[in-house]
Each structure stands twice: as C-alpha cells, then as structure tokens.
C-alpha cells in the first residue's frame, strides 16, 4: 500500500484544476445556469475533456489519460469547492469504470468517446426514495434474443442531458446492466426540478427494446460491472462533498474574520472559534478517508468497499455540518439567495442522498467491521 499522501502529480493536478475552475466554473456560473434554466454546458465539458478529465479513468490505448481513481477524486474535490457543473461523476467516473470492466471493442470505442467528451452517460438505478440497487424491480423481460425493459427510474443524475443510459434491471436470474442510447423508443425522460439546480431526471421505460449487445458485461451478473463503477462514483462523490465542505468552510472563516457585531469581529467570539475549529478538524479527518478510498481503488480494488463507504459516510456528515454551520454563522445574509452559501447547502443535501446516504454507507462500514 502506498503512502497516504498526495503525489506530486496529484498536487499539480489539483493546482491546475483549481486554477481552471475558479475561472471557468465558479459558483456564479452555477447561479447563472440556474437563473437561465440551463443544466448543462457542453462547451465547458469539452474543455474539461481536452484537459484529460473526461478520460481520467479511460485507458491510454482508448484515448484516455488513465490517471487513476485517486486523481479522479482530486478533480472531483476541486469541482466540489466551486460547485462546478459537469457530468464528470456520471460519465468520466461511473460509466468509464463500468465500461473498463468489459474488454471488447465496443466498450473500448465507448471509452474513447467518453475521453473525447463526445459521449455523456447517466446511471439509472434508483426506483424508490433511497439508493438500493438490490431492491431493483424494473423488469427486462427476455424477448427472443433480446429484452424489453419496462419500469420507472428516479434521481437519475445527469439523466436529462446524457446521450446514453446505464440501466439496472431485473432479468430471469438476477440483475443486468444495460447500456442504451437515451433516445431509444419508449424512453420518456422528465427533467426533475432539483434544489441544487443540477441535471437530474425521472425516466419511464415503456417496453423499450434492448439487444444482447446492449448488455454491459454478462446477463444476470450486473454487479461484476456495476460494483466497481458504483464504488468509483461513491468515492468521487465523497471527494466532491469534501471539496464542498472546504469551500463552505473557507467562506465561513473569511466571514468570521471580517464581519463585525457588537463592535468586534465575530471571529473573536470563542464559542464560534471552537465550533469553527471543530469543523476544521472534521474536514481534516474526512480528507484522510477520501485519500484512503482513492488509494484502495487504485491498489486493491477488490477490497475497496469499506474504504469507499467510510469516505462517503464521513464526507456526507462533514458536509452537512459545514453547510449548517456556514449558514448559521453567516446569519441572515447566509439565508439569502443572493449569497452563495445556499448553493452549498442544497448541493450537500443532494450529494448526501446520491449513491447511498449516510446510513447506507455506515451500515456497510459496520458490516465490514463485523457488526
């Protein structure tokens, strides 16, 4: 196992990402998109692809930069800081990881399109209010050599913008993952009006045809492909939440230093100092859990599950604390839409639910620890 530090390359990647995102995707960009009812900026995603981000997990021979999971986390973390809008996790992390599990020409080609920024993906798993792949009810009925998919999915992040969908459905002997174009006949996508103003959809499948070629991996064995993809996504999302916490925390500490009440900076009030210090401590231990998740995915992916769940659980809890303290310490101004803190609070809430909430991942940590 390598050291639990950021490598020089990763540090450089972070610096570069920060520089780019501060300019190209600050919170004001998200605000602008929301105010205009836009959830995707194709040009921005293309720029990210050109920097190698879309291909961060795509092998070099497929046209990717293949930097690994720790690097993907670094990018996600920086995106979290400025609440950058992109299909990075859905496409570059989840879909790319899923496709990598399959070694055929079709998958390689798809990976190439992802790396080039030419294809976007969304993962359609949730059917109820909570993430629970094992409870999937949506049916893919065998029909000749193919299948017919019927059912409903919700909370499909990037589901309205995506060119392609990864759909989890129940087949005769288990679960199967399908990789199908989003505009196939019988698919009806309804954009959800999300509190974080990000692209998300509810999708209804009515007798949608799928061939054997549309199956990613093996029929009835979705988890072989999906498990690594989910873990990669969960880790990146944890990193995004950690970045979000850091962004909210920085705003808050700055405010504590400049805002005056009763004649002094509120950062002089010891009660606030201690709470801010506690929050910082939480962000620090969260950062360790994120680093570890990236290391495990890169070096021992078979056994990365606990590390990933630990990172997602801890990052979720810390992000919640960071935005609650952020709003409270800002007072009334933090409650106004004109101020950025609300964007952090809303994104933290959506990130908390996506790909498994605190409880889901806490239970997995507990199971891995023998209780």
């Amino acid at each position: 196992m390598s050291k639990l530090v950021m490598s020089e390359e990763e540090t450089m990647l972070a610096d570069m990402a920060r520089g780019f995102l501060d300019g190209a995707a600050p919170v004001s960009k998200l605000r602008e998109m929301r105010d205009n009812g836009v959830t995707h900026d194709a040009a921005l995603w293309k720029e990210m692809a050109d920097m190698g981000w879309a291909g961060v997990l795509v092998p070099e021979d497929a046209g990717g930069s293949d930097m690994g999971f720790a690097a993907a986390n670094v990018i996600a973390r920086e995106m979290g800081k400025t609440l950058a809008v992109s299909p990075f996790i859905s496409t570059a992390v989840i879909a790319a990881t899923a496709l990598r599990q399959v070694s055929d020409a079709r998958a390689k080609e798809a990976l190439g399109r992802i790396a080039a920024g030419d294809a976007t993906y969304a993962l359609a798993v949730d059917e109820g209010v909570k993430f629970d792949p094992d409870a999937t009810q949506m049916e893919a009925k065998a029909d000749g050599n193919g299948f017919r998919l019927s059912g409903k999915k919700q909370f499909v992040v990037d589901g309205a913008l995506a060119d392609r969908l990864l759909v989890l459905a129940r087949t005769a002997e288990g679960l199967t993952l399908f990789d199908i174009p989003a505009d196939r006949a019988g698919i009806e996508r309804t954009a959800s009006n999300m509190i974080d103003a990000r692209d998300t959809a509810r999708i209804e499948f009515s007798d949608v045809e799928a061939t054997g070629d549309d199956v990613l991996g093996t029929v009835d064995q979705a988890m072989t492909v999906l498990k690594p993809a989910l873990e990669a996504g969960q880790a990146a999302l944890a990193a995004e939440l950690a970045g979000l916490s850091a962004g909210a925390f920085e705003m808050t500490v700055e405010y504590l230093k400049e805002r005056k009440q009763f004649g002094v900076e509120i950062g002089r009030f010891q009660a606030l100092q201690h709470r801010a210090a506690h929050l910082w401590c939480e962000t620090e231990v969260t950062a360790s859990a994120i680093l570890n998740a990236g290391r495990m995915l890169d070096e021992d992916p078979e056994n990365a599950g606990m590390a990933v769940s630990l990172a997602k659980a801890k990052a979720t809890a810390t992000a919640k604390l960071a935005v609650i303290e952020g709003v409270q310490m800002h007072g009334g101004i933090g409650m106004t839409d004109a101020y950025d803190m609300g964007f952090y609070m809303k994104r933290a809430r959506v990130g908390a639910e996506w790909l498994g909430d605190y409880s889901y991942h806490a239970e997995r940590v507990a199971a891995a620890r023998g209780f």
Partner: protein
Amino acid sequence: MTANSIEEFRLELREWLEANCPQEMRDGGIVEDAICWGGKDWVFSSDAQKVWLERCAAKGYTVPTWPVEYGGAGMSRDQEKVFHEEMGRIDARSPLQSFGIWMLGPALLHFGSHEQKLHYLPPIARGEVRWCQGYSEPGAGSDLANVQTKGEDKGDHWLVNGQKIWTSYADKADWIFALVRTDRDAPKHKGISFLLCDMEQAGVETRPIKMISGISPFCETFFTDAVIPKDQIVGEENRGWDVAKYLLTHEREMISGGGAGLSGGGRALGAVISDTIEEMDATLRADAMRCEIDALSIGLTLERYKDQAEAGQGAGDASAMLKYMGTELNKQRHELMMSAGGSDALEWDGPLGNRAGDWLRTKANSIEGGTSEVMLSIVSRRVLGLPA
C-alpha cells in the same frame, strides 16, 4: 371559571362552530395558500375564506383573548384552550393570521394608550389592516439596538430616513411598526422610539429579498423623508427599546412554539417518516427517537411555563431558552424529514410538495428573532449569572 361553566362554554362554542364554519374551511389549512393574512389589498382565495373571517371577526374570534372593546372575545386562558381544542376538533382553519395579531397587538395592549388601542386594534382584529415589522437593519445582525434609521424631530412629526431589512411581507403590508433612532446622543439603547408608519405615503418603499428556499417572505424597506406624526408612537419617546424587548420575548415564544411542532397540524415524526420509509434503519430510527423525545420535552416545557405564568410563578428568561431549544429542534426535525424523503424531497414542488423549501426555511429559525448564540449568551448572563 368553574368546570361547569367551561363545559357550557365549550358546548355553545361547538354549536356556533358547527353552524358557522364553512365546510371548505375545515381542512386543517396548514398549507401556505390556506392562510388568510388580511389587509387593504387582500384577495380572498374563496368566498368561504371571506365569510369565515367575517363571522369570526364579528364574534371576536380572530383575537379571542383581546378585550371585547378592541375587537376580541375577552376569553380567559382556559376558554382560549377550549377554543383551540374545538377549532382543532373540526380541523377549522385559523380565520386570520397577522403580525398585527402576533406582535403589534400585544405591544399596544401592554404599552399603548386607550385611544391607540381603540384606533389600531379593531382593524387588525377584522383583518382590514396588515402590519409588518421594521426592526433589523443591514449589517446590524444580532445587534438589534444598533439602529441607524433616524427620526428628526420636526415639531408635530418625525422625518424618518434609513433602511430596514428582514421586514417580513413588507411588500404586502399596509403599515409598519419600526424602531427609529430619535436621539443620536443618548446611549445605544436609550435613544430609540417605537413608531407606527403608514406605508402608503411618499418616502416608503420596499423590495423583496429572495431566500435560499426560493421564496421571498422578507423585504428591504427604505425610508426617505417619510413623515410620522407624533401621536404614532408606542410607549414613550426614546424608550422604544422597552417595547422592542417585550416584543422580542413574545416573538421568541412564538417561534419556539412553532419549532416544537406543537402548533396545529404537527404530526408525530415517526408517522411523517413512515410516509416514505417502510423500515427505518438504525441511524434514522435513533435520530428520530431523540428528536421525538426532545420535541415532547420541549412541548411540555411550553405548557409548564404557561401554567407557571398563570400560577404567578415567574419563568424568568424562559423565552430565550425556548427559542433556542425549539428552533434547534425544528431544524433537526426537518433534517430528518429530508432524510426520510430521500430523493423525492430533493425537487422543488416534487412528490413531497414543498418539503425542501420548508427544510431550508427552518435554517432561519435559529437566526431570526435572536440567533441561537444570542439566546445562549442571554441564558448564560441572566440565568446562570456568568460574567459577560
């Protein structure tokens, strides 16, 4: 009041309600649209809403405990309790809600002259004039006494200039009660007056503030050479802080009561959660139990303080405590409701209605009316006697 007469009172009231409360008004009415705020420009959402207000106002039921001469029904606290029980029995909507009822009314009843009461209270009780509150100023935050809006003494009136913020529904209000600095040389707390101002005049403008919950219940209000006649003052000149303090206490109790989820329509947390969750996991269940235990304990404390006050046992600086505990609890409760709602709760106007908006709204509970930090400092100083 004897048990017998209170039971008589109950039966009469029940009969009246059965006969007079329109069927459409018997739905609990907890959604925002069901509220009747009144005011000059009020547009009733239905005939039933109008009839219901008029009938209640005629009996003094919009302000049941106010004296009859000021538009109330002169009920005792025991009677009021029965009133709310009987209203709850048929799920009757509140006929009228307003800052006039909650805030200005109590202030006038306590500090106003008989003439002022006669002049201002009945229109409030009838829902004819809608009031808003002008306390906070930009940058003042928790330091409420840091009032910069100034009122120049012009003999028979003050000439008011300045800016207020967080003036709830000011864009829909007819009048505003505001703290204005009428003596710039006096110490901070000693130069403030509590003034009443007609908003339909030159020099008073409002602008809504959009909140993170997506709505704009708050405004900024600007005074530019606004004229306020000298008789539109509550309490003495430069003693407005006394009135403000009185009302703050009142406001805290109100917010904490709502916070504890004890006002009408508050369902047990467990029931709300099971709307969306079949079986709670350990974390959600543990948190929900803690929240429920706290809600019940805080609810009992509200009851105890009221009973103590009635029994003449002072509850001291209870309002700060209740405000702190009630609002922090409410925030937790809504966090749990969001968690229970999962992805259905993440959409504006999604399958769970405005759950996300309500959740975001609660984050202001521990800021408005005195932050949690200010409440704790008040308890520390006044109750525990710790040095400032």
